[in-house]
């Protein structure tokens, strides 16, 4: 079995002040190395911060060689 895995992730995130991109990347990054993500829905709620739906694919496990980019 491959030690590197790609995993789908579905998250909900309450938006906070500050960089939205950094908030999403931190939330996705808690599940693995973000490979691809997007905010796919935004729910506005009275007197509460908007709730973002995020879909992502993350990389889990150690890649055998270091990235050379």
């Amino acid at each position, binding site marked *: 079995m491959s030690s590197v895995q790609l995993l789908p992730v579905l998250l909900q995130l309450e938006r906070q002040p500050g960089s939205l991109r950094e908030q999403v990347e931190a939330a996705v990054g808690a599940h693995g190395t973000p490979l691809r993500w997007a905010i*796919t829905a935004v729910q*506005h709620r009275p007197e509460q911060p908007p709730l973002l739906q995020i*879909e992502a694919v993350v990389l889990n496990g150690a890649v055998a*060689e270091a990235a050379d980019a």
Partner: protein
Amino acid sequence: MISTAPALPTLLVIPTGIGCAVGGYAGDALPAARLLAAASGCLITHPNVMNGAALYWSDPRIHYVEGSSLDRFAAGELLLQPVRQQRVGLLLDAGMEPELRQRHLQVADGCRATLGLEIGPVVITDRPLEVSLSLGASGVSWGQLGQPEALLRAGRQLKAAGATAIAVVARFPDDPDSEALAAYRQGSGVDALAGAEAVISHLLSRELGLPCAHAPALSPLPLDPDLDPRAAGEELGFTFLPCVLVGLSRAPDLLPAAKLPVVGGASAPAIGIDALGAVIAPAGALGGAAVLACAERGIPVIAVDNPCLLEVSAEALRLEVIAASSYSEAAGLVLALREGIAPAALRRPLPPLRLQS
């Protein structure tokens, strides 16, 4: 009109697999990209915009950059260094049947003989990649790869053998009778293959630091008399590979931003995020990494009315954008920015200035 103003590097993003009316099919955003390249003089965009299977358009003003590298460019992590030609390594999935593999080798040979592209070496993965398709909660196309390490091993082998860019051909599952495929071919569905394709090229490009793009290998489909013209590009032949080889053949090198760009010689200077003058994206799909990174840097965002599955709008994200009803209008706005004309001056009513309180 021909602009004499310096080029305005412009980023065009049309996310893959979200069913965009323009750009959700087989390279059907290419006319828009050509127009925007003419308006800006320098367009940076990604394979989903440019790939029309056997159809393609090569324009030195258009820079072909895979999606995860675009995200890193927008975040200021990468520079794009234009090149004369890449040496495109071909990575074939061991899951392909011998005849399908032979067809792809012949496509590569055709691109060498007819277009003069430098292609090779060719490597086959040491085990099938096991691509699977899926839809996310929103209906957006995602996908999976059962053997990501096999992909990376083959990619490293190509890089070690001198490839400066990598075209991947992976065996995708055939599902000729599915309702989703029928809807896509008739112009009302999502490209189910797109998500898995993006995952493959993102993984490889991220780990190897090379331009990468992907073409799916599939059995030819039976004739559909109701085929939508936007999907027709994928029905011309046995493979989707020619557009990928052409796109990668002049894709810019990806330089870590900390590295100084190459100066002198015949190369054009590297393009960094600081040079970007505008980003263009569908008005309902503004929640991706590249668009958010640009918006947070204060780069003008042109939000184009291009219906798709998502409703992640400027209003929903509280972003300031310039609205455009079509890519033709977006091209006019890009030309205005390039010429130093404030877009607001082109609209009516023009509200009077107010004193700041």
